[in-house]
């Protein structure tokens, strides 16, 4: 594929005897939203960790625009792959604004000397970063909380703040690990719209989610990971109708699950 932005080839991850990922390959096209689904423990988060350099895969490689990604999360982020975490990992005693400013870190032109001396260059870069953070906070709808400590934010807003922080690194690929976990229907819908507008910005997105309705209505393509193996890959319609998915994914008679998926029921 010529317009693929992110390519994973044969990614395998073993923890001792446990094979969490086995020969996973996929590619993400520019401007695409991919959904990643699979039962608990399927290896979805592990795949994100391999994509972002937090884990070094036992085998296989990950490339961004044809260039292999380094095994250092900071450098991966600098190159343009940002992420959020399944269990929210904000900087709890920093304000919402400061959290987003930290996301700006790798794009700010401010040397340690400039940090120390607070000269004109410092003021310029801080002003730029502050403007950008304000924009992003507004983009995710958190302007009113900008001076609030991250720990004090309502749960759903913490997830949005994590997205704003990730966007602050100017990513070309955004990896979202269960962005709607713990949200009510209304918040989930808002998040769906948020992800669509992120795509409008030209960012390609991979979303992990258990909420199948959410995934099928949002994504261009869906990957199904089961026990570390990529089982099925296709459009939401293809995946929804695939009997293998229905059986392997939920381990139940197809008809039942079919009904469940169509009803948009959430698995825990």
């Amino acid at each position, binding site marked *: 594929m010529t317009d693929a932005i992110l390519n994973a080839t044969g990614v395998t991850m073993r923890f001792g005897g446990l094979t969490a990922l086995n020969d996973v390959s996929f590619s993400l096209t520019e401007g695409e939203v991919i959904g990643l689904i699979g039962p608990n423990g399927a290896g979805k988060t592990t795949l994100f960790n391999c994509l972002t350099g937090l884990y070094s895969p036992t085998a296989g490689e990950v490339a961004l625009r044809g260039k292999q990604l380094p095994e*250092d999360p900071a450098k991966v982020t600098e190159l343009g792959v940002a992420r959020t975490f399944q269990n929210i990992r904000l900087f709890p005693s920093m304000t919402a604004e400061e959290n987003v400013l930290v996301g700006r*870190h790798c794009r700010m032109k401010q040397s340690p000397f400039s940090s120390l001396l607070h000269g004109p260059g410092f003021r310029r870069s801080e002003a730029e970063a502050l403007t950008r953070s304000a924009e992003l906070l507004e983009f995710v709808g958190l302007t009113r909380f900008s001076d609030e400590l991250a720990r004090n934010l309502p749960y759903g807003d913490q997830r949005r703040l994590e997205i704003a922080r990730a966007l602050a690194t100017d990513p070309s690929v955004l990896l979202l690990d269960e962005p709607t976990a713990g949200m009510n229907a209304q918040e989930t819908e808002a998040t769906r719209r948020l992800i669509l507008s992120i795509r409008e910005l030209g960012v390609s997105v991979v979303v992990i989610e258990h909420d199948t309705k959410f995934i099928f209505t949002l994504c261009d393509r869906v990957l199904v990971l089961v026990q570390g193996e990529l089982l099925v890959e296709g459009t939401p319609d293809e995946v929804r109708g695939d009997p293998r998915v229905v059986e392997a994914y939920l381990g139940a008679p197809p008809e039942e699950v079919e009904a469940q998926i169509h009803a948009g029921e959430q698995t825990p």
Partner: protein
Amino acid sequence: MTTIEKPRPAAVPEPTGRLAGLAPHARTLRVLGGVLTVVGTYLPWATFVLNDGPYPEQSTLEFFTVPYGVTGFRLHLLLFGIAAIVLALAAVPAKGRMIRALGVGVIAISVVNGLYIVGEGGGLGAITVADGVAFGAIVALIGGVLLVVGANAGGIEPQPVWNWRLNPWVERALLVVVVVVLLLLVAAVLTSGGQGGSGYAGGVFLSFLAAVGAAIAALSASGLLAWVTALTERHRLYSVALLLAAALLLPLTSAGTEYWMTVAATIGVYAATAIGLNIVVGLAGLLDLGYVAFLGIGAFVAANLSGAAASTIGITLPFPLVMVIAAIIAGIFGAIVGSPTLRVRGDYLAIVTLAFGEIFVRSAQNNIGGLTGGSNAIPNIPPVSLFGTDFNEGVEIGALELPPGFLYYVLIVLIISAVMVVFANLKFSRLGRAWIAIREDEDAARAMGIRTGPIKILAFLIGAMLAGLAGAFYAHKLGTVSYESFRFLESVTLLAAVILGGMGTIPGAVLGASVLFVLPEKLREFSEYRLLLFGIALVLIMRFRPQGIVPDAHRRAELAPETDPAIVAAEEKVAAEAKGEKS
């Protein structure tokens, strides 16, 4: 006054547990506590004339010789007692909170003085009823306990928030008054009890410290302190300038003698070092147990470049240059010590730094490379000499005679100011935010594009440079540099200063260092108990105020109990927003 906002109506929380039954009697208890404190003040505290210090006239039957006239600690008790009675009867917001602070103060003052009179005076007879009357300490102590119990029984209100706005010029004038009071208070605390080591000196100092502490705590409980803090933030530069001016004016107060100038300069060295350590521990969250080694490295570098007879390098350089070199060399060592942070975290890093501190002490003890003088130390380091003036001499400016040590004091004030600027500038910058992010969650920080390795090493490097700077001053001021001054205990004391004062804040580090390095000076007769007292103080602080004396706004939220007004306000705001969202 242009606008006055009423403080948020303070809902008094219901006391729970054992105190619940006492709630109806809270006011009675408070008044009774106040009355007993006043009565205790006027009772004799010893049955005989104590022959030392300021105690004699204040601890005997003074009432009958100077009716109503009390001085010293009894005056403090009297004021606290009357204040408590007034607060108990008046309708003042947060009065329970204030009375609790006063009560703790009364307890501390009566315990300190009671123990001193017993210990230094004539044994237990001093406060028993042996000759009929001498139990002032016990009565005042009971009064203090009743105040605390009464305050708790009635419920401790949240601290009120005042939003008064005055004419800017009135506000500025008010700040001058506040700063002058602060200056006089600092001078009074520093000199109270006189030079340590004799008779009741330690007692007078501790008692006064308790009184000042309780008074400040009561003011803080009333919300006035927070208001003044908000004032200083509105006039930021002006306040900083005022504080600097006040610091430079200290020599004109009662503390303006050679002895106190020397004590102040020594405190200054540790305050500057503590601010440096605060970068490593408070901002970046990296535990360093061998930090004082960098102060030592700076001091030894300066000693070797000072032209002292014992230094093997025969060169003498001007002091400003020496400071720079000392800072750079200490910084290099800082980077080396920090390099394991690339691999180890948390406890393991602490062990690495501990080992480094130990290596430094042992090497210095063995006169490594002939640079440290071993157990002979490097003595006779000449004083700093700039513009043809030796810094250890007094100066006369017109009619004004300033004591020897004055110039060193000014120098350390300037050094601390510079160190504060470094700390404050870094804290609010790309680098400072990266440090705090690493402290909060290192993996998340990496995922946000922070190259944690170099950033952590920078924390060590900059922290060490600041300590090295202070070390250069230290060598010249003391005139002797010995490995014995840089042992593990000093590292722990510095760390304690940072934690005690409040992690990540400048006033916290300065206050912590002042308290921890003044106490041994004042309590010299207790030198063998120093560590014990130190430990007790730390345990108490961690129990009752885990966020430190002057907490960082952010950390306060993390560690403070639910009564903290800032948190309550924040939570209410969030709740209100959430409600607005739904409707």
